[in-house]
């Protein structure tokens, strides 16, 4: 089943390179996404989503890497990384459109259990990334208020 479960689009007043850096830089991702994204971002390398110095919360493999335009990752909880049924796929497409960037995040091959969590988490992550890139700050309590 190749049909994405979610396709989220955010327009951000910045450059494609800055969006790429925000996703792939450990310090920047920690700032607006709570945890760091860590990898050398080469095809075939592993990547981790984690508090630095702690065990990873999410892990995967870099499937495609075309900076600053496209990044495709596999995505799994550390315990499920060897179970193909529990490994989903995330693609970031970063298109420069004049003075804005269209960032498209599509999440594919999610299990039913993953669907609900992802639905709630991605809008918070993407909105906070936009605020970070456009203002240098973050949304107060960006990850609160989505549990109802």
């Amino acid at each position: 089943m190749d049909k994405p479960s979610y396709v989220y689009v955010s327009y951000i007043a910045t450059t494609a390179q800055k969006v790429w850096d925000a996703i792939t830089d450990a310090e920047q991702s920690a700032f607006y996404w709570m945890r760091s994204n860590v990898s050398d971002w080469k095809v075939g390398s592993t990547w981790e989503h984690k508090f630095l110095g702690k065990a990873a919360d999410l892990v995967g493999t870099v499937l495609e890497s075309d900076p600053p335009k496209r990044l495709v990752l596999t995505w799994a909880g550390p315990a499920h990384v060897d179970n193909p049924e529990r490994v989903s796929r995330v693609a970031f497409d970063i298109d420069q459109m004049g003075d804005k960037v269209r960032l498209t995040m599509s999440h594919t091959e999610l299990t039913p259990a993953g669907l609900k969590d992802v639905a709630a988490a991605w809008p918070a992550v993407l909105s906070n990334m936009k605020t970070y890139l456009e203002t240098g700050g973050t949304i107060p309590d960006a990850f609160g208020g989505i549990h109802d």
Partner: protein
Amino acid sequence: MADDTDKVFKALADASRRALLDDLFREPGQTLGALASRLAMTRQAVSQHLTVLEAANLISSVRQGREKLHYLNPIPIHEVHARWIAKFERPRLDALADLKSRLEGEQTDG
């Protein structure tokens, strides 16, 4: 920016367009034809509404072969929420920490 917010509210100020968004929430990745038959609307009406919703960034789409699949894009609504609602709420759980504990819970459940 103000213009983008105007588009969101104008797009939402129509019951048929809200019904389209509700249906894409229930069943993501639908074609225009599927939406028209599920909502008993003409293809032309659905197409016009989708154009308005896409201009407001409330709908995203992917091409798969010859088909265009449509998705609810909640990002602009989340931005409205962040602007007018989230700032009044007291800090609560960190969503991603919650995601972690749920994923770990699943792993012990099987």
